[in-house]
């Protein structure tokens, strides 16, 4: 059943979009945190891992169906995100950027190896949550799971966009990311807003984790490292600190990976992601959507 080149390309696009939507969800967390406190939270990929495990717990032990499990996992990770922020990052808010960065790496390692200790590095499998119905449109195969993944990601991203642009909290978030001190002078409780940002970012990462678990079946304590790094690249690609940028960056990265793989250079797939990082930083460090903000004296 040899498929034509066009069908092949469309199939790769479908593959790339579902992968890309996961990267986009994680990248959103990176970008929001950076936008608000200029910290690259390297522990973010591992929060995704905790989300995947919480979802697993909800599905296998608490026997919840998909949506409640997703919500359970999102709430659990939102709490974790706030906890990490209060314990590890808040005390360093006025310290040098390097100190905060190193702490982020430390939290990341803590989550990974703490997870290994608690959960043992044995792979856990998600039980099948969705019916395995396949849809075939013009020779291109979609799984039921593909569609759910895309829809869930887009709904979450739309909700985030709505929250940031049209609600009071969103306005406060934008204010704090623009100028933290001025926002404080305006009467905004910056501490709470920062914690809230972490909470949302972590919840999105948890959603990505559950989706990854459902889609790829297997979860292990080190699963957050590579997707976390790639999501970071996606956030930089779109413009770190810019929310639509993270979404676009994530989808683009997923597509590029799929296409590179499709051209037979599957071993270069991971390398390409980091090559993009290097190119973006050399050519346009502010990313696709970023503007170079000059400091006016």
């Amino acid at each position: 059943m040899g498929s034509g080149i066009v069908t092949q390309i469309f199939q790769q696009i479908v593959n790339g979009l579902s992968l890309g939507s996961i990267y986009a969800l994680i990248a959103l967390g990176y970008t929001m945190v950076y936008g608000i406190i200029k910290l690259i939270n390297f522990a973010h990929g591992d929060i995704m891992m905790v989300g995947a495990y919480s979802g697993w717990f909800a599905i296998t032990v608490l026997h919840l169906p998909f949506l409640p499990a997703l919500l359970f996992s999102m709430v659990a990770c939102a709490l974790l995100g706030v906890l990490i922020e209060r314990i590890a990052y808040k005390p360093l808010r006025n310290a040098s950027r390097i100190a905060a960065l190193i702490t982020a790496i430390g939290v990341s390692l803590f989550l990974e190896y703490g997870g290994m200790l608690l959960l043992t590095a044995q792979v856990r499998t998600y039980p099948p949550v969705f019916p395995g119905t396949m849809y075939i449109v013009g020779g291109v195969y979609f799984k039921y799971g593909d569609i759910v993944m895309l829809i869930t990601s887009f709904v979450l991203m739309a909700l985030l966009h709505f929250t940031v642009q049209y609600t009071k909290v969103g306005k406060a978030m934008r204010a704090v990311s623009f100028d933290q001190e001025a926002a404080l002078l305006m009467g905004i409780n910056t501490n709470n807003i920062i914690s809230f940002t972490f909470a949302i970012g972590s919840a999105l990462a948890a959603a990505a984790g559950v989706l990854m678990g459902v889609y790829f079946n297997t979860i292990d304590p080190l699963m957050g490292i590579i997707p976390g790094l790639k999501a970071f690249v996606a956030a930089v690609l779109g413009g770190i600190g810019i929310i639509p940028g993270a979404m676009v960056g994530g989808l683009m990265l997923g597509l590029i990976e799929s296409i590179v793989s499709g051209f037979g250079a599957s071993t270069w797939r991971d390398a390409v992601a980091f090559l993009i990082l290097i190119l973006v930083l050399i050519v346009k460090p502010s990313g696709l959507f970023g503007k170079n903000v000059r400091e006016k004296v």
Partner: protein
Amino acid sequence: MKLFSKGFSLGMIALLSVSLVAGCGTTPKAGSSDSSTPIKVGGNLELSGSTAMFGQGAKNAIQLAFDQQNAKGGVLNRQLTLVAADNKSDAGESTSAVTKLVSQDKVIAVIGSMTSSVTLAAIPVVTDSKIPMISPSGTNTKLTMDPATNAVRPWIFRACFIDPFQGQVAANFTLTNLKAKTAAVIIDQKSDYSKGLAESFVANFKKGTGTITGTEQYVGGSDKDFRSILTNIKAQNPDMVWLPGYYQEVGLIVKQARELGMTMPFMGGDGWDDPQLYNIAGDAALNNTFYVDHVATDDPALATFVSDYKAKYNNAPNAMAALGYDAANLLIKAIDDAKSTDSEKIRTALENMKGFKGVGGEITIDPKTHNPQKSAVIISNKDGKPVFVTRVAPQ
């Protein structure tokens, strides 16, 4: 203050260098000859990570073998102790794990590891320390034969067949039973086992006038999304797909392949052997897949081992456990033949081992290659269970 701190740091540097020098170059003593101290055997095993099921099964089986021997009074009137170190299915960790076993725990021999790349990483350490190592299931030729000098590695042995044989068995089955004329190959580029087995299959398949339509690669241990490479292969439309990887990725690959509408048979090697495969891929996806293995666990020759294992651990052993059991008993016999725990004597005893009857078959070590001649079985997956298809004896 300045002088004090300078002197202090110089003192620290001196202290650290002394400890460094003391740490290197210690030759471990091969255990005291006091008959009350237990004999320590090291296990450099994959107890966590992507091939954890192999190491766990082997560890349990080795412990079972040791317990059974200890109940009979041990060997040389001393009890056997297994000191297990987890190499996390990673080559880098393997080197540290075996270094710890050899220099800290002072084991007299090492059993390990289950996978070829991980075993290869441990070889320099045991060779330098002159400790014999038996790999229960490492099948790559490089384990016992150094490719640079084409000479046998004196301290390394194995309890299983090698990949050239496995590839040949698979290729013949593919050509004769599956009647495939074209095949695509998917290789785990991080695994020496996968690369070696793919080479052997391709060479034998081509000899039998088969054609390879294409080769794709993935990174074992971290890749989870294989749909792009599978889409490529689907377009090539091969009669079958050769997938010599480990069960964790194999499960995902077969599952994703079936979801893309690929119905051709998939086949692989002993890396497939684990019940986790069914959890990961789902029973339906694994229909029409096959793999080469060391033993079929429903073989009546293994019945006693299987029931002993089940009684102790409450679940059935996999083929790797059977090989671990054989490796442990092989070592016990070698210690007995050597009548000593001296590493050099054990090594010689292993090298001259003939006619050892293991549950996985008879092991006679060829002194020129340290490989035993063992037969292979072909298993097919049907409705969530492995089904024995045929046994192939070595030529």
